[in-house]
């Protein structure tokens, strides 16, 4: 499902975000069939601080929900932090921790919580990362997201077309 082809998703993204893309990995086409490949969608401040990331392909409703969550949480964080960068960071740390607890049942404040991370969904792992490192810069997070969360390799290789 291409969530970005959805009218509601497009309208919302164009209203609230300036968008771009970057190739960080590759995939193979074997006998016309795509093998491998993935996507990570980063919602960032203009300075490249990651507010949220959607790990992997999702449907339009999910993408729109996550984009809205990012925008509304950021607005509330700005209001709450009153220009204090540390408070803004703490707000997002708590926001991701709350979603991790609500949606994955993992309370990162509890003893032994980090041992449970292997059982998390892709999105749960993304929340865990951003609870541990809120507002991390995208260049410090992308390799971990692409390789450790999505299980892909960062690569500059072109797409390989293989016929067998």
């Amino acid at each position, binding site marked *: 499902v291409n969530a970005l082809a959805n009218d509601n998703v497009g309208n919302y993204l164009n209203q609230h975000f300036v*968008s*771009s*893309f970057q*190739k*960080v*990995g590759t995939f193979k086409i074997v006998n016309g069939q795509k093998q491998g490949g993935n996507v990570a969608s*980063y919602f960032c401040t203009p300075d*490249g601080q990651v507010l949220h990331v959607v790990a992997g392909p999702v449907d339009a409703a999910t993408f729109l929900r996550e984009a809205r969550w990012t925008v509304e949480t950021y607005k509330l964080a700005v209001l709450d932090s009153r220009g204090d960068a540390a408070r803004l960071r703490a707000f997002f740390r708590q926001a991701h921790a709350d979603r991790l607890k609500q949606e994955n049942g993992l309370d990162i404040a509890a003893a032994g919580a980090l041992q449970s991370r292997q059982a998390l969904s892709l999105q749960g792992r993304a929340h865990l990362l951003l609870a541990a490192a809120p507002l991390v810069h995208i260049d410090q997070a992308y390799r971990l997201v692409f390789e450790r969360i999505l299980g892909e390799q960062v690569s500059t290789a072109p797409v390989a077309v293989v016929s067998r």
Partner: protein
Amino acid sequence: MEGPPTGAVQNYGTRVAFLSTPAEAARQAKREQKLMLVLHVAGNFEDSCFT
């Protein structure tokens, strides 16, 4: 002083307007007081966009 965007906006078969580089998107987001969406993809987004 920040200049105007240098690249054209394209949709690549989606409903989303994309600038060609994250740096350009960052400049425009700052100017328009918007947030920034950056897709990290495997492969050629221009030919095979998928999410």
